[in-house]
């Protein structure tokens, strides 16, 4: 078939998923993992091929290629094509999805090796990869929504992978439902755009915006509605509640879906629709504010969490906030750049956490860890590297991407948000190194049974960790700060105008260097504080918590948002449902059905009067009928 290389990218994982769903139970474990990993590897190879083949030209510096597969929906003037688009932004996304995806598939082969439902796991993982690839390759909002829903479904399936555990099943349900609320906003946004621009394709919308066919108010409305969808998918306030619970799923799932890829779909969407958001700066401002607030909010909660995965979950929410902050102020490339570096170090942190949990036979509470660096010679250093990266320590990737966002925030005229960003950086450094010091350093608080079995993970798990660690260090060098020269930032140049950094104003070189120093200082401050509290004077945290128990509990429970939603929304709905069930379903519907049945019985009994069993009565009926018929015919 004459389809360009990029059009084939989603195919292999789709076939892999289909095969594994149907046959997964009957295949050997090795076959399953090799099949699943190979299909993602094929996607990765195709992605590389397609990226290298992107010809120069077009407004973005590199051409935008589209390929129409077929006309999908056609109803009067409403047309939706099933078409794929490949440009610099798509290239970045498919490389992340297939690259990190492949690494995590390989890791999973080791991590899930003793699980009963091996086949179902990899089938879900492959299906997710397919849906995510579809999402980022779609040429219009509707096809993108198909992928959007697909990743939501896979998230549900994989969070609730161990569905016999009630908490896991509930977490999966919660994730899906909260996502659904966001999706409602997304669909409404699509509808607004459809009515305003007549099309959902990205090119069409961009063209309508630049030709002034969309009123600013409509654009703003659509932008906000789409952001509601993004908030749901990317766990921003107020729809963030599902992500911490999503940690019930297997750790590689948390790494892939809830760190590197699915949750970044919201950021991708905003970057993709940057023309719209640029046209409606009010909406952009709201995005930035929500992002910044979420970054700080989640950071404060992460300070006191005791489950290693929950710390990382809140950390993800916080980092996503940064990405939205970047996109909100118009620095879409900066947001995507942070997405890129975050994919490396966050998945590294999650997988390393998985390694720790595996080593400790399932222990996830950091209060029962400690001194692990002696026992885990590979996991410990890579975790440390990941922590350095996320904290924004200079010369690692996180530093570069975070700096890009902060520079943009200040340059675009949002100093308050920039300061929030710096505050978040302090928090990030602190809670990450609290985690590092409590888990890997200091006195060993491991339980005796776990201590007996503690072992480093097999190389099928540590190999990926090392690869990701290398990425966490090196990825940042693709995006050197502009203060070092206009051409220094390769990443931004690659993205060009597909996902630009809007020129809202420049900080002078002095201010930029000042900001670099400020970020470095925030990281140092956070790490230093963590060192003081968790290495030097370990009794201090306990005393502080005891002095302010209310504050401690508030943070521990995430500001009681879950409890609030439960009381304000969930409980009334449940009560309402129950009342409807009792009053309508049972009393009206069931009663009318019973009534219909009883009526049938009554009629039957009435009709049975004619059945006397006596042949003369029947003959009477015959003759009567005959006479009446003849009479009718004669008249």
């Amino acid at each position, binding site marked *: 078939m004459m389809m360009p290389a990029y059009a084939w990218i989603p195919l292999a994982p789709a076939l892999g998923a289909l095969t594994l769903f149907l046959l997964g139970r009957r295949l050997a474990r090795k076959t399953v993992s090799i099949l699943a990993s190979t299909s993602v590897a094929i996607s990765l190879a195709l992605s590389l091929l397609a990226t290298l083949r992107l010809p120069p030209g077009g407004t973005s510096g590199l051409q935008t290629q589209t390929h129409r597969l077929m006309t999908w929906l056609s109803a009067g003037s409403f047309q939706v094509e099933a078409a794929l688009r490949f440009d610099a932004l798509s290239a970045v996304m498919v490389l992340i999805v297939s690259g990190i995806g492949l690494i995590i598939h390989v890791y999973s082969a080791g991590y899930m090796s003793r699980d009963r439902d091996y086949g179902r796991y990899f089938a879900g993982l492959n299906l997710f990869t397919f849906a995510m690839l579809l999402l980022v390759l779609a040429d219009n909002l509707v096809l993108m929504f198909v992928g959007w829903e697909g990743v939501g479904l896979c998230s549900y399936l994989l969070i609730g992978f161990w569905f016999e555990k009630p908490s896991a099943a509930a977490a999966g349900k919660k994730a899906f439902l909260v996502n659904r609320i966001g999706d409602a906003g997304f669909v409404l946004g699509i509808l607004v755009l459809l009515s305003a621009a007549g099309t959902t394709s990205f090119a069409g919308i961009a063209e309508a915006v630049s030709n002034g066919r969309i009123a600013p108010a409509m654009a703003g409305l659509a932008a906000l509605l789409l952001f509601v969808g993004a908030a749901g998918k990317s766990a921003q306030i107020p729809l963030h509640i599902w992500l911490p619970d999503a940690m019930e799923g297997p750790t590689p799932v948390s790494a892939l879906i809830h760190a590197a890829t699915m949750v970044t779909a919201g950021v991708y969407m905003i970057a993709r629709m940057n023309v719209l958001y640029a046209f409606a700066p009010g909406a952009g401002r709201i995005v930035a504010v929500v992002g910044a607030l979420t970054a700080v909010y989640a950071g404060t909660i992460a300070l006191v969490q005791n489950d290693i995965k929950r710390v990382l979950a809140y950390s993800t929410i916080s980092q996503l906030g940064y990405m939205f902050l970047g996109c909100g102020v118009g620095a879409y490339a900066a947001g995507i750049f942070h997405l890129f570096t975050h994919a490396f170090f966050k998945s590294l942190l999650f997988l390393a956490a998985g390694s720790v949990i595996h080593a400790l036979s399932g222990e996830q509470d950091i209060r029962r860890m400690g001194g692990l660096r002696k026992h885990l010679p590979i996991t410990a250093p890579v975790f440390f590297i990941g922590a350095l990266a996320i904290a924004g320590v200079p010369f690692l990737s996180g530093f570069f991407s975070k700096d890009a966002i902060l520079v943009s925030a200040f340059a675009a005229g949002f100093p308050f948000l920039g300061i929030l960003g710096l505050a978040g950086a302090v928090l990030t450094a602190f809670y990450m190194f609290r985690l590092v010091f409590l888990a890997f350093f200091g006195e060993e608080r491991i339980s005796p049974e776990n201590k007996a079995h503690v072992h480093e993970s097999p190389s099928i798990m540590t190999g990926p960790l090392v690869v990701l660690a290398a990425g966490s260090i090196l990825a940042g060098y693709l995006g050197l700060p502009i203060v070092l020269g206009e051409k220094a930032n390769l990443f931004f140049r690659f993205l060009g105008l597909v996902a630009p950094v809007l020129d809202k104003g420049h900080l002078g070189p002095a201010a930029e260097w000042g900001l670099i120093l400020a970020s470095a200082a925030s990281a140092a401050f956070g790490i230093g504080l963590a060192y003081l509290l968790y290495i030097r004077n370990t009794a201090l945290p306990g005393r502080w918590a005891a002095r302010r128990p209310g504050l401690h509990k508030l943070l521990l429970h995430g500001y009681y948002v879950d409890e609030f939603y439960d009381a304000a929304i969930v409980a009334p709905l449940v009560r309402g449902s129950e009342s409807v069930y009792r009053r309508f379903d049972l009393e009206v519907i069931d009663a009318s059905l019973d009534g219909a049945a009883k009526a049938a019985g009554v009629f039957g009994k009435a009709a049975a009067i004619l059945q006397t069993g*006596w042949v*003369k*009565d029947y*003959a*009477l009926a015959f*003759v*009567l009928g*005959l*006479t009446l018929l*003849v*009479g009718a015919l*004669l008249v």
Partner: protein
Amino acid sequence: MTADIVFWILAAVSAGAAAAMVLLKNPGHNALLLVLCFSSLGGIFGLLQAPFAAAIQVLVYAGAIMVLFIFVIMMVDPRAGIPPEKIKRAKILGPAIALVLFFELGTAVWTLFEANAAPADAGPAGSPTEVGRRLFTEYVYPFEITSVLILAALVGAIVLGKKEKAGS
């Protein structure tokens, strides 16, 4: 002319035999009256230029079927008399409605056929040869199927009439 007189005599006999059958209670008498009725009908068939029909009417109906009836009457022996029925509604209503039917159809027949009173026996005789030819060409399917039907009836009658074995 003679044909007319013979017809009316035969008609009277058959109607009268039928009426008598209604009134008399003895089943044996009823059967014999029917034989009379059917035979006179056979005669009427003959008058209507249908010799084949006449022949088989006498042979099969008056001959075979009524003989069957008489056999069964012998075996069942309802000489003991049958007690009167308790539920009278059918006995009253049935004939009443039948009377209505008679008047309905009677008026129809009168208006339809008295108007153009053509003799019923006009035309050539329906020869048995010709009937036979039709039976084996145009009507060969019904003919063959009736043979299957007779076989089925034969088997059925034998199976049903068997003496019950002990315990069955």
